[in-house]
């Protein structure tokens, strides 16, 4: 097991180095002169240009620049935003809890509905329920989620007036954001109704963000269930006279869950990409919206830093998924 963990860790390094190379080259690939971009003016005189260039470290050879960049990254120094002049890491960390909260809620929604739907569809193969689940999940999988968000706003917020249109909390409340997670912060505060307001702001974005993972989980659970239900041990369990419920939930489901867990882990990337669109629609003050704004403002250090942090996060989530997979499935960790 230890060996498996170590081997898996060694896969992380090339990926991480590659991502840093990518973000490092980003600043050199952009059209135009980075010095002029930084200064925010064109045609600056040669002396000042050279001085600024030296200040930014762009006069050194590329390898030296890269090593300096890596040193900064390891220490958590990702540069400063062109626009706000604040450190990138600080900006990111301030916004990340909002994205994390939204992602966790979306994933909870997806698992809560996707897993049972997939199990039922798998057990009742070929029935109308199966066809409905498969049809709905394929539709969800094909959904342009930015439009899905607009549609839900149109129906639930505008027509019915059940949920708020955007943001994280009603403007009526002023909450100390200690943890950054609105649900926790509002629970700890003694403002009555604040928690309810935070929750109602979360519902629509979570549904929108959770739709594609929901579809993927439902499809995966179904096909995995179908496979497991044909196994000998399921027949044995049935022959022993166990109740169908016990056969499905204990004997079949535990084994069917293994590929489903991998899929859930792999949805992290999908969630973060979806967060970009979802946060833009719902004006959710998270990392995704921040990256879109940074790109529109051509705030290159922010784009660079944001991509680096998100990619690193995904690499580590994938690592964690692999490790969990190795723990629950002995066949994986003993191969090779």
């Amino acid at each position, binding site marked *: 097991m230890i060996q498996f963990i170590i081997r898996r860790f060694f896969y992380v390094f090339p990926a991480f180095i590659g991502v840093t190379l990518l973000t490092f080259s980003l600043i050199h690939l952009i*059209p135009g002169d980075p010095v002029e971009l930084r200064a925010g003016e064109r045609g600056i005189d040669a002396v000042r240009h050279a001085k600024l260039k030296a200040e930014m470290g762009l006069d050194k050879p590329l390898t030296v620049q890269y090593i300096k960049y890596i040193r900064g990254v390891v220490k958590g120094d990702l540069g400063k935003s062109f626009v706000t002049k604040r450190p990138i890491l600080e900006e990111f960390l301030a916004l990340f809890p909002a994205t994390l909260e939204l992602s966790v809620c979306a994933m909870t929604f997806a698992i809560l509905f996707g897993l049972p739907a997939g199990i039922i569809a798998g057990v009742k193969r070929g029935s109308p329920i199966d066809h409905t689940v498969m049809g709905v999940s394929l539709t969800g999988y094909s959904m342009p989620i930015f439009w899905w968000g607009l549609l839900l706003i*149109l129906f639930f917020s505008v027509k019915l007036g059940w949920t708020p249109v955007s943001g994280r909390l009603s403007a009526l409340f002023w909450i100390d954001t200690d943890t950054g997670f609105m649900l926790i912060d509002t629970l700890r505060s003694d403002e009555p109704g604040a928690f309810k307001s935070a929750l109602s702001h979360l519902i629509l974005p979570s549904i929108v963000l959770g739709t594609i993972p929901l579809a993927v989980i439902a499809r995966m659970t179904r096909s995995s269930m179908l496979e497991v239900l044909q196994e000998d041990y399921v027949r044995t369990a049935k022959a022993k006279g166990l109740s169908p419920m016990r056969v499905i939930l204990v004997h079949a489901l535990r084994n069917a869950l293994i590929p489903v867990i991998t899929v859930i882990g792999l949805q992290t990337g999908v969630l973060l990409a979806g967060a970009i669109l979802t946060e833009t629609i719902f004006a959710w003050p998270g990392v995704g919206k921040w990256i879109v704004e940074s790109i529109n403002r*051509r705030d*290159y250090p922010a784009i660079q830093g944001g991509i680096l942090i998100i990619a690193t996060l995904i690499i580590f989530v994938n690592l964690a998924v692999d490790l969990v997979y190795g723990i629950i499935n002995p066949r994986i960790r003993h191969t090779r």
Partner: protein
Amino acid sequence: MSETIAASSNQAPPDTPLKEFWKYFSENRGAVMGLYFIVFAVILAVFADFLAPHSPFHQYRDAILQPPCWLDGGSLKFLLGTDDVGRCILSRLIHGARLSLFVGCIVVTLSLAAGIILGLTSGYFGGYYEAFIMRLMDIMLALPSLLLAMAIVAILGPSLRNAILAIAIVVLPHYVRLTRASVMSEKTKDYVTASRVCGAGPLRMMFIVLLPNCMAPLIVQATLGFSTAILDAAALGFLGMGAQPPTPEWGAMLANALQFIQRAWWVVTFPGVTILLTVLAFNLAGDGLRDAMDPKMKR
């Protein structure tokens, strides 16, 4: 004796591969429906100039935000209503089909061609070259596709051409990995060894011996790739990083729809429905294609 001969000659000749394929494909009703919709969309795209009732750019200033024809205030002149500057939504959707299918075609062609070359060479030559290519693909897969595409657009600047390029780069790893995996499993088979013994060179081995036997999963992936390309292009258009206004692109049509959500639901609804149906059609057809081409599924 003569009876047995007669009986065997009475047997129908075996189906041609195409016929056999259609037999399995047409069993899947969803896939056939998807295919019909794709054909319909292609016809709309090709004959957009004749089928669209109005120009997609012309602004009818006297008919701003006019509702669809079946609602009060709607007219038969604009079947699906008009947008905030009085352009016919139906015409824009029809012309948008041309754009979306074009994006799909270009993205799939680019990524398929590059993916096949990289996948074939890395599977065939192996060694450090393969390790390098595959690690590179792993890195690209570690990034959410939309984020990577946005980064590329940030470098190249927002335009439809750059969006197409970005999406083609982003989906590349899937084709490379798929081709490489097929090459790896085919490489050890006898027919490959036989042609090597016959003295076939690397190019012949890769493109004439191996490639045709690796095509089935690639065709399926290419079909599904259409839906990804259309969806991603629409998402980039929506974020203002793809097609620029006034281009009648489906995603870009939704970009500022949020502000009309209170008074003109049709501006919001129709472009989205169109994207959903098109993507769904390609996904259905792709699923059907996979089932029809997978020998394990054939009974």
